[in-house]
């Protein structure tokens, strides 16, 4: 404890008299040292010292009139609530009446100013609607969110819902604070009532939907999401909310089924590749990946089949192919990969097509460490020659690089590439054979 008794006495002796005036605290403030005032600039100063019993005795012995002991730790919240005073620390355990009477004469503006300084104030005496609204307006004009909220708590408790809403509708700042406050304390019911009253339908819908984030149990969550369908979202959002519900509904079915299959141990795919996590609450694309991984061959009729998911959620071709490719490549099911890009025309000729572009296919295959033979096949399908050459070089598809250089009649590049292949390898031989060939008219 650094503050010595001497300091304290000096303080009281010099400021005591002032401390008991009814005047605005600002006057006391001006008496104090500049530096001190600086940091406490907006706070009442006399709150400082209370830890000394001696002082306290002299405090209560003084004829303080209608003013409470400054620095009482009794707070506004005591005045705000009907609940009887609970177990106060000894020095707070004085009868309530002692704090009460002092404030009877304070105007709304005095009251708000005191609240702002963290002082005791009873709001109960503001009984008429007009008084209450004036109190609110004073608080709003001070811009202090803390005080605005305090007054709103009081209004919320003492006014009927209808009147509170009606009055706040024309007081936008206070209204925004009430909305924030209701969100903060989680009074969802009143918040929804308020949005309904204000006819802010989309906010109402979103605010209701938001609650699902706090529901852990999947069944309950699903049922809750069901209640969100049909709420006044925008048309675009409505579709997403509907999809959210449908997706979770599917996931619950798939999860139950797959957990059973996995624990039974009869299904090869689950034995070989045990599931790392439950599919519940995963995004749509993750679910599609899962379904392409574990349920690829299933008929369209089952909920877990990829085709069914694609149709139900209108997944675009591009997205579907990308996801299926990633899943099948991970399983190294090259045959499936091949089938994904093979199309037959009406004459029965097959053709390779990729809605995502073959350069993307190659990247994904490489990421899943596909063997060079497979990579090569798809690198060859890349249409743009520069891209093709780049990818082939990057992924060491020697054959493709060599053939492309030959086709481009680019002797220099081929020569340069010769140094990158292994000495004495088949690739080197091939390059040498081409370089010696008299059939080719090199462009350089």
């Amino acid at each position, binding site marked *: 404890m650094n503050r010595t008794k001497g300091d304290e006495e000096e303080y009281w002796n010099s400021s005591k008299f002032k401390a008991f005036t009814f005047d605005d605290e600002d006057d006391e403030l001006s008496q104090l040292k500049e530096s001190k005032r600086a940091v*406490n600039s907006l706070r009442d100063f006399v709150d400082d010292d209370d830890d000394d019993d001696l002082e306290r005795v002299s405090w209560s012995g003084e004829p303080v009139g209608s003013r409470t002991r400054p620095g009482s730790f009794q707070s506004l919240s005591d005045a705000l609530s009907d609940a009887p005073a609970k177990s106060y620390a000894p020095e707070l355990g004085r009868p309530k009446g002692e704090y009460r009477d002092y404030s009877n004469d304070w105007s709304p503006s005095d009251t708000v100013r005191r609240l702002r300084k963290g002082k005791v104030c009873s709001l109960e005496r503001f009984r008429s609607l007009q008084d209450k609204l004036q109190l609110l307006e004073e608080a709003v004009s001070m811009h202090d969110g803390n005080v605005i909220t305090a007054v709103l708590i009081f209004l919320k408790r003492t006014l009927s819902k209808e009147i509170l809403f009606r009055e706040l509708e024309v007081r936008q700042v206070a209204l925004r604070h009430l909305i924030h406050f209701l969100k903060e304390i989680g009074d969802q019911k009143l918040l929804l009532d308020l949005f309904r009253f204000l006819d802010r339908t989309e906010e109402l819908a979103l605010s209701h939907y938001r609650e699902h984030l706090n529901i852990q149990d999947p069944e309950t969550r699903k049922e809750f999401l069901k209640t969100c369908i049909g709420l006044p979202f925008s048309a675009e959002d409505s579709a997403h909310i509907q999809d959210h519900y449908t997706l979770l509904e599917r996931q619950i079915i798939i999860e139950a089924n797959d957990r059973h299959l996995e624990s039974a141990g009869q299904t090869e795919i689950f034995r070989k590749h045990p599931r790392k996590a439950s599919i519940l609450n995963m995004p749509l694309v993750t679910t599609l990946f899962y379904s392409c991984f574990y349920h690829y061959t299933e008929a369209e009729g089952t909920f877990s089949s990829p085709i069914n998911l694609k149709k139900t959620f209108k997944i675009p071709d591009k997205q579907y192919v990308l996801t299926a490719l990633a899943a099948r490549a991970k399983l190294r099911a090259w045959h499936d990969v091949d089938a994904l890009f093979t199309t037959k025309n009406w004459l029965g000729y097959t053709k390779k097509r990729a809605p995502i572009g073959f350069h993307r296919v190659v990247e994904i295959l490489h990421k899943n460490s596909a063997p060079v033979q497979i990579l090569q096949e798809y690198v060859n399908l890349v249409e743009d020659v520069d891209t093709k050459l780049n990818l082939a070089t990057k992924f060491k598809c020697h054959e493709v690089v060599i053939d492309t250089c030959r086709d481009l009649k680019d002797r220099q590049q081929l020569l340069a590439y010769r140094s990158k292949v292994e000495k004495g390898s088949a690739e080197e031989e091939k390059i040498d054979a081409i370089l010696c060939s008299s059939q080719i008219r090199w462009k350089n």
Partner: protein
Amino acid sequence: MAAHLSYGRVNLNVLREAVRRELREFLDKCAGSKAIVWDEYLTGPFGLIAQYSLLKEHEVEKMFTLKGSRLPAADVKNIIFFVRPRLELMDIIAENVLSEDRRGPARDFHILFVPRRSLLCEQRLKDLGVLGSFIHREEYSLDLIPFDGDLLSMESEGAFKECYLEGDQTSLYHAAKGLMTLQALYGTIPQIFGKGECARQVANMMIRMKREFTGSQNSIFPVFDNLLLLDRNVDLLTPLATQLTYEGLIDEIYGIQNSYVKLPPEKFAPKKQGDSGKDLPTEAKKLQLNSAEELYAEIRDKNFNAVGSVLSKKAKIISAAFEERHNAKTVGEIKQFVSQLPHMQAARGSLANHTSIAELIKDITTSEDFFDKLTVEQEFMSGIDTDKVNNYIEDCIAQKHPLIKVLRLVCLQSVCNSGLKQKVLDYYKREILQTYGYEHILTLHNLEKAGLLKPQMGGRNNYPTIRKTLRLWMDDVNEQNPTDISYVYSGYAPLSVRLAQLLSRPGWRSIEEVLRILPGPHFEERQPLPTGLQKKRQPGENRVTLIFFLGGVTFAEIAALRFLSQLEDGGTEYVIATTKLINGASWIEALMEKPF
């Protein structure tokens, strides 16, 4: 001591000392031995104003992190909770207090709200039946925390969301209070400029607060000439772009928290010969970054491309200095060499650290993906292809890159196009929801409400006008020896800083048209000074402007302002204040919707 705070034009150590004094006074109020229970978020900001030694001097014997259930045992008289006024923290405090062992020695509880007591929180404590258990319930108005010689922050992470989404002005009130404290210490600021709705509010609050204090005339000679209040939503673009200054990139990649950064340890292993690298450190390397470190002060605000050459030059100087030992022949020379050793060793340590950091950053900035991302950003900012679905963004979604990265790019495109075409917006939205989860509808709505992601209204794109008038895109940027603030983003000149620059010269009257396009009012207020305090500027003396970013500021913007301060004929030096130091990622993250 924090000497680096006094290096600048305005001695911010005065503020630091003032807040330290207030802390000591509170601690002394709780007589006897004490333990502090910390809201973890506060330990960082508090670290900037007080070390543990200060607390110890005032009988703080133990420190705990605020956690549920029982308090750890501590043989102390007082338990003090240092907390932000948040309801969820009140629940934890109540749990602590209620599970206190009644048979043990009685302990006194206190609570210190930072920066403000909250009636709502006290109500919650009362509802939980513990309010009466606290002897002291007070507030500690740590509004503006000095970070560096020219930088102050409130470190209020929710400020942007509260101001621009919830319409809650509480953080503006704190900003105004912080400004009043500054004026009490550094004198009344004679001129206030501002742009934006929140700026207007803060100016109003300041004027009102001043009126209420008429009894106490401020007799301090004013240090600041101007105050510029800027709303973050006047310039939503800048934080979305990737910062390209050294400090900005450290923040983008590793995140600077309260001037500390945690780095992967591998690059910092002591290099010894014959060491097979067996005992590589596994714990993150923690470094403090501020202007107290000479080398860092020199390179922090440079474009990253200009950092390498400075580091190699320094390396040569330092090795030359060490070589000097061979030339030291006489006892006197040797003595002089030895006396310089500590300084040289510190310089070498600092150089080693920054070389390692620069290597780490370079690994990232030279990656293909970083290059692709930057290309897209620069296209958007210079106005290319902002009105159609972007391939790179599409790829990022398909490859499930972090959602924040995707949102940042989509928002950047939207801002650079004054909103996206409905069709484009719907496409992005659907891709995002299907890939990352439908619940992000809520986040997308928040972004829309904040004006970051929105449909284009009336088919009009204002961005080109703003870009041209304010010269936001500069094609010929010099990263090594910059001549314009656009070097901080390698071409893009931050809009916010451009506004500050134009205000100081030639004045905002020259850009009235653009100011009308940007959201919120612009205004000017004067706070009259008694004649004795009016400043007579010497010829050639720079003005000092306090620029306050309401809703956050990035390190790149700070670098650009420091660049302006250092210009020989600039005429203005800046001290920067903000509600929070942000980058695009931390900013977007604060707008994302999470469970209650």
